[in-house]
């Protein structure tokens, strides 16, 4: 079963944001012990911050570290910097961190397409920032998994 976990809070930097989301995924038995380390290493090399219009980062790592597919979203009260995917030397303010624990199967193609299409939509981004936590869970679930 695919799950979405939502956390509201703050992180001092992108490493801590990845730590918070990885911890949650690990607590639910979705990822291996070294998932966090693997995500960090990957983020250092290939950052996942998106753009100014889309203040989102999508850290993730290889499928070997994933036991059960799940997504952990950290909604930050205060934006933090991530390096940009399209230009790693630049940074971008991020309010939403989507830590993606995905397996490489056919289904995940659909999930990824839905997530990216959702994030490219400015109205959707506004909703993601404004909805209550419980609404946000349902909203994301409907958009990504159904």
């Amino acid at each position: 079963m695919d799950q979405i976990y939502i956390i509201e809070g703050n992180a001092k930097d992108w490493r801590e944001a990845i730590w918070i989301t990885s911890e949650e995924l690990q607590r639910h038995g979705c990822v291996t012990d070294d998932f966090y380390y693997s995500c960090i290493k990957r983020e250092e090399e290939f950052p996942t911050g998106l753009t100014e219009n889309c203040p989102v980062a999508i850290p993730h790592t290889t499928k070997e570290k994933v036991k059960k597919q799940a997504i952990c979203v950290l909604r930050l009260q205060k934006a933090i910097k991530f390096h940009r995917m399209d230009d790693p030397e630049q940074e971008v303010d991020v309010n939403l961190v989507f830590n993606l624990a995905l397996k490489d199967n056919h289904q995940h193609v659909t999930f990824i397409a839905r997530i990216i299409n959702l994030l490219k939509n400015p109205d959707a981004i506004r909703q993601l920032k404004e909805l209550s936590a419980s609404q946000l869970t349902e909203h994301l679930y409907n958009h990504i998994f159904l």
Partner: protein
Amino acid sequence: MRELKVLVACGGGIVTSTYVSSEIEEIARKVNVKAHVTKTQLMNLPSVAKDYDVVFVASKYHEEIGVPVYSATGVVTGINEDEERENIKKVLIELSQKQD
């Protein structure tokens, strides 16, 4: 018409390359170009690119690998997306015509 061999690369070869691959398959279908799309990690490009007709990357990439490399980052980020999609279409059509 021979099938075009297209390689898509991103950092880890998981999320963005998956998305870009399915988008390129869709574009190829729309313009009637037969394309087989494979995804990989950026670090593998120098060793595997020679087996492909064209490479699309979802990140900055400046290495010379003997195969044309184009950006598809905008397809993911939405920045310059329309231009990039047009370019992908153009590249696929040109390459397929060259091979006839």
